[in-house]
């Protein structure tokens, strides 16, 4: 069966439509110029920026200025640095004021070393911010129960981690991601831990709506080329998901001598 042409493949988060399934982080580039070039090469439409890196008086290391000048980019301020819900909520409100964007990536990691998200504080912040009308996209542990709880309080997407931030260990949480994906009614975006485009492709093949990368691009040999590679991989992964992977383990292939031939004897 041939697919006749392709419908516009868009995904919707918080009522906003996007066609790119690659989200970009901005905090780890060598300079603003490289960051901007990588953002452009990635074709991304959603870029996250840490409030803690945003200067209210623009300085040369300010992230927001150069991003604002790009067209077609939705800014998603993040609350990275917050240790609890109240800090994240304050950061989210300030982020909205500074960026003019209703999107917020709720990021609460009380342990500043491994930066693992705090499920309890994240839930609390997400609940309050969603009620305030934010488009809430929580960075979260890959926990299927938490995922449903976050969905229930009005989050616009789920952003489970693939593995620890900056670990480059890829989709270490695959089994949990499958459970999250099976039940989710809102887009699932793998955030953190990805190292290579093939891992991004795998996330999309599984059915994730998108992936978010930062270190994998910023710390690569050529961030701009790597951003483009991720864009291609994400597209390939998405197309593979739409096409439908062949079943695993040969489950539906017919053996030449049927294993159940003996069953028919009785009925003859």
């Amino acid at each position, binding site marked *: 069966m041939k697919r006749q042409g392709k419908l516009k493949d868009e995904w919707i988060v918080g009522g906003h439509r996007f066609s790119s399934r690659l989200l970009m982080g901005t905090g780890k*580039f060598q300079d603003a110029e490289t960051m901007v070039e990588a953002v452009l090469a990635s074709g991304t439409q959603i870029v996250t920026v840490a409030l803690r890196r945003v200067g209210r008086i623009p300085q040369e290391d300010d992230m927001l200025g150069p991003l604002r000048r790009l067209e077609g980019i939705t800014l998603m301020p993040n609350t990275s640095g917050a240790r609890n819900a109240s800090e994240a909520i304050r950061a989210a409100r300030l982020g909205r004021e500074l960026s003019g964007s209703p999107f917020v990536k709720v990021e609460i990691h009380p342990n500043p070393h491994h930066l693992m998200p705090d499920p309890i504080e994240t839930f609390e912040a997400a609940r309050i911010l969603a009620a305030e009308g934010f488009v809430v996209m929580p960075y979260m542990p890959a926990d299927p129960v938490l995922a449903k709880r976050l969905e229930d309080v009005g989050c616009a997407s789920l952003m489970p981690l693939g593995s620890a931030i900056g670990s480059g260990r890829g989709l270490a949480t695959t089994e949990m991601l499958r459970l999250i994906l099976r039940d989710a009614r809102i887009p699932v975006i793998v955030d953190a831990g990805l190292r290579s485009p093939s891992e991004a492709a795998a996330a999309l093949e599984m059915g994730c709506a998108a992936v978010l990368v930062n270190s994998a691009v910023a710390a690569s040999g050529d961030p701009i080329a790597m951003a483009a590679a991720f864009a291609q991989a994400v597209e390939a992964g998405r197309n593979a998901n739409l096409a439908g992977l062949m079943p695993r383990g040969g489950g539906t292939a017919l053996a030449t001598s049927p294993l159940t031939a003996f069953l028919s004897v009785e009925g003859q």
Partner: protein
Amino acid sequence: MTQQLPEWLDPSPWLDGGGSSPADVERALGCDEPGPRELAALLSPAAHAYTEIMAQRARTLTQRHFGRTISMYAPLYLANYCTSGCAYCGFASDRVQPRRRLEPTEVEKELDSLKGMGFEDVLLLTGERTSHAGFEYLLECVSLAARRFHAVGVEAFPMTTREYAFLANAGCSGVTLYQETYDPFQYDRLHRWGPKKEYLDRLEAPARAMESGMRTVGLGVLLGLSDPVFDAVCLLRHAGHLRRIHWKSGITISFPRLQPQAGNFTAPVPIDEAQLARLVFAVRIVLPDVPLLLSTRERPEFRDGMAGLGITKMSAGSRTTVGGYAGTEPGTDGQFQVSDQRSVPDICEMLRGRGLQPVFKNWDSVFRDGEAGGRG
């Protein structure tokens, strides 16, 4: 008086074996979860031949966790009064030199000039607690700094948990407190008199700071005072101990190296640049996610080379004299000699030339309210 090291600090299980072999070094380099054993191997003479491999590993880990960025901060010396007699320090009470503290209006001037240089992260320094510059004074200075800067750190005398909580409430987000050396015998010998002689009081102060809700605590040893392997393994164990108990606070590690200063003290165990570099690489390998700092004590070429090879935070344009930035007053002598005298723009240019972004703001004061003790 010297004491037994607490079990959680004692480095002896990893030091007993004597030297490490090349095989030990290779094992350490290939280890998934390197710890004290691996650190000791990476600091052994056998590891010298692996310096380049260590540097590569350190850079990879640094990029993975911190990207291509270097955080910038500035130290501000508030006062040089001191009652202690640390043999290695230019501010020791028996050193003849002009003593002074910045009055609040002068502190404001100094802060304003640092702000004018682009800084958003300031480290306030004093000597031992004295009647001239005690806790109340420090608290006032923190408040003045917090009104202007997003990140305010303090490097001063050990305090009580309650005092640290007051500082945190006033806007202090980091406390730096070097043990100088973890070797209790050497510690006792070098700290000739004064409150700083209390090894355990100092050792336990970082935990008190964390308990109070302080976001980050800076640890370090003064390199040159004692056996660096002993000190490094203790430092790693101290960091691990703190992380297990106070899991919501961050740790940073600095690598101050003894420089010539008043008193003509010579380092009993001098550390050369190659050893210092290897120490930074080794610490990065065992603590991949901890910010590592390098001050202007080191010469420009060394700082340039180390940026991004483990080091993720640097001071720039530093003055170690009281009242050094706004140039308000006849200076005092500095606590140590600044080797890297370059201006802030020069250092930024150097970093950019090496593919690194100098980051002045990496923190936002909006996160402050929840800081003090008792918060979840």
